[in-house]
């Protein structure tokens, strides 16, 4: 068995999701190759070559591959796939966009967002907002899989894989990348942060979200998350949304501030190691999953908490 892991990157750095995906590949067992498709992405290939357990890194470069357009990358993966038993990508927006396109072209049913490996053809995946875990066995010749990154540790360094160049193929001529507005922040990345502080509808405005949530996050060295209600209301950017249809996080500490705890939100954070909830309603469902619940008005509790944390 040889497994192909599709690397996620921005042509400069390998994204952390790839590290977790390689661990999932190790659980399946077999030789692990990594595909780096991009443009001027040599540094990414070198980083991938150093991951433990990776034996070959394939690099495909070209202008058509620079921005991760699925229309251009999918045919490349399909061409390579014949030599592999499994094709894996992280279940990030990058992997979710690309991999089903690959699966359909291979006439294979993708297994989305696995959280455990039972056997080389059998996997566990959450369905219904994580209320149920389904174990599924694939009968397809090639297993095409996206990986829930929080369910697998990041692989460490220690590898020294060979780097091979492969042909990147032509531009499919279907789509064009116009630009991106990425959220800039000095805080840790939400999906891999050790501590996450999330705010909900109760924050009331973007100004108050910033004035209350961000200082607490800064004090804790935490990433900032939000509920859908807070994002929809414009208090926080879309990429902060934690939940069934946003990001899944599993930090050491998750602090939910003014969030009621709808199942769609819980789906994205209930695997956190320690959960703290601050809510003025003692009946709020978030308290059913919280290790430590504090009933109170967030506008007085959070400043107090920042104080109590000292320097």
């Amino acid at each position, binding site marked *: 068995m040889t497994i192909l892991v599709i690397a996620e990157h921005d042509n400069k750095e390998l994204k952390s999701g790839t590290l977790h995906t390689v661990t999932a590949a190790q659980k399946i067992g077999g030789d692990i190759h990594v595909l780096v498709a991009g443009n001027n992405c040599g540094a990414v290939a070198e980083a991938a070559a150093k991951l433990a357990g990776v034996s070959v890194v394939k690099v495909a470069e070209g202008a058509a591959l620079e921005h991760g357009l*699925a229309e251009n990358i999918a045919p490349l993966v399909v061409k390579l796939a014949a030599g592999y038993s499994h094709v894996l990508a992280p279940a*990030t*927006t*990058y992997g*979710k*966009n*690309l991999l*089903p*396109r690959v*699966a*359909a*072209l291979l006439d*294979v*049913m*993708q*297994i*989305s967002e696995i959280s455990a490996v*039972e056997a080389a053809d059998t996997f566990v995946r*959450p369905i*219904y*907002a994580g*209320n*149920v*875990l*389904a*174990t*599924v066995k*694939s*009968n397809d010749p090639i297993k095409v899989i996206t990986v829930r990154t929080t369910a697998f540790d990041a692989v460490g360094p220690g590898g020294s894989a060979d780097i091979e160049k492969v042909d990147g193929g032509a531009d499919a*001529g*279907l*789509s*064009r990348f*116009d*630009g*991106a*507005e*990425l959220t800039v922040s000095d805080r840790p990345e939400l*999906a891999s942060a050790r*501590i996450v502080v999330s705010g909900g509808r109760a924050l009331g405005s973007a100004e108050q979200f910033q004035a209350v949530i961000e200082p607490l996050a800064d004090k804790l060295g935490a990433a900032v998350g939000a509920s859908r209600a807070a994002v*929809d209301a414009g208090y926080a950017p*879309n*990429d902060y949304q934690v939940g*069934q*249809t946003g990001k899944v996080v599993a930090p050491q*500490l998750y602090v939910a501030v003014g969030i009621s705890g709808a199942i769609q939100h819980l789906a994205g954070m209930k695997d956190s190691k*320690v*959960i703290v909830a601050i809510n003025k309603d*003692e009946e709020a469902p978030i308290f*059913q*999953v919280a*290790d*430590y*619940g*504090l009933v109170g008005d967030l506008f007085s*509790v959070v400043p*107090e*908490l920042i104080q*109590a*944390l000292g320097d």
Partner: protein
Amino acid sequence: MKVIVAVKRVVDFNVKVRPKTDGSDVELANAKMSMNPFDEIAVEEAVRLKEAGKVTEIVAVSMGVKACEETLRTALAMGADRAVHVETDAVLEPLAVAKLLKAVAEKEQPQLLILGKQAIDDDANQVGQMTAALLGWAQGTFASKVGLSSENVQVMREVDGGLETVTLNLPAVVTTDLRLNEPRFVKLPNIMAAKKKPLDKLTTADLGVDVTPRLTLVNVAEPAKRQAGVKVANVAELVAKLKSEAKVL
């Protein structure tokens, strides 16, 4: 311009789904069913494009059991012009749905196909991308803004780092994210009018699609329950517990 919208009948988002006692599948008997929320956003977008004069006809399509007719009637009440129901009792995986949708698109020849990004039952997030692949069309997934012209469609996408914009040649596939729009409430007169709109039936055989599942469901189980926590009296107690008991600070 003609647009197809794919709508799935799913368990309502407020229902907490549990496994059957024998773990063979989930328990859905008597559960409230609704249109997948992302598909409501898809229908709403199509209707807005029609109201803006950019789209002339909206065809709503659903695959599955007889009761999908209700979901299609809801789409018609929201403003779709016609409905196509591919009726089957078979378990449909995303790949099979994509093949059926491709076959419908080949008959109907739309310029745009709008789907939800994810069905909230299987949480697969696949059908749009798969359909685009099978048709050889461009895909704009997780859309939070759609700008349609006669030649192309510009899609602002919600991605992990923020937002990204792509321009797609037509015909194209777009999948909706939560911020694209807020679906309207359907008014009673529209529900009545929707009953008179055409709803055509097809079978998987009519479309020549083999829908045999590729995955076997081995079992379903409930995830491990979290230990019940405690309420702390004040901030000082919270900080003390986080330091000495949870040791996360």
